[in-house]
């Protein structure tokens, strides 16, 4: 079986996640060897995925964690009756 570009595009996400069966993976790999367009699409999609995972791209608002834990502290002080007894 010889797969075409559209077929490859349909599996790109699963391919990036290593979630295609070995047979299909081999077919896609064979296609990629000779298809510059599909290799470019694969690389750019993978780049998007890699970029999104970078903690520097999506940062929590400044002070988010401090404010959250201050709120937790207030809750712990207010509801001292919840859970066990304070050691």
């Amino acid at each position, binding site marked *: 079986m010889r797969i075409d570009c*559209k077929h490859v*595009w*349909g599996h*790109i*996400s*699963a391919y*990036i*996640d*290593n*979630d295609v069966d070995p047979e299909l993976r081999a077919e896609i790999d064979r296609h990629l060897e000779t298809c*510059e*367009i599909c*290799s*470019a*699409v694969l*690389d*750019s*999609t*993978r*780049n*998007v*995925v*890699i*970029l*999104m*995972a*970078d*903690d*520097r*791209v*999506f*940062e*929590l*608002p400044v002070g*988010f*964690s401090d*404010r*959250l*834990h201050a*709120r*937790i502290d207030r*809750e*712990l002080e207010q*509801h001292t009756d*919840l*859970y*066990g*007894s*304070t*050691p």
Partner: protein
Amino acid sequence: MTLPEPEFEAECIRRILAGEKHLFHDLIRPCERSIYFLLFSLLKNETEAEDVAQETVIKVYQNLDKFRGESQFRTWVLSIARNEGLGRLRKIGNRREDSLDAETDEQTGDYTPAILTSWREIPAEALEKKELGAILRKAIEGLPEIYRNVVLLRDIEEMDIRETAAALGISEASVKVRLHRARAMLQRSLAPQLKGFAPKRKGWFRGRA
């Protein structure tokens, strides 16, 4: 992302319920980012997302004795976050056109990728540039909500398919389909814009899984 540690969590929860309440800070810390970004993806507003994140965490604390350990702690926390977020959306009457729980997106459709050959490798220094982050955030915020959630949890918080499905209350098959669509949409919208961050060297960071 901080990986969840089930044994640490179970021990923490046991001790909190026995009275060592201050340990709740340590228990919730690894979940903070995921809570915030899930809510941000729902509410599309930093202030609202932070506010609901705080409410979520308080709710988690108040209901901690109800956690049964049948799912991962973070999955349980995120399902609470999602409910709180949906509650807030209803309250502010901001239910957008894209259905929040539509399962109708599973039909196959053709997504033609952006064809390009000049943006294939990411120069590491591009990540330092603030505008790259802004471009990415804008593209993700532009996705329909059902895709945005999946991308946020799977690609930004790097959860696996199973945990993403559990946190969003959808099937693993739906996660895969939505993720595929979302990535294709992002590739289409981002690839041409990211050409400016031109390749400097080849072979940087190939492969992910």
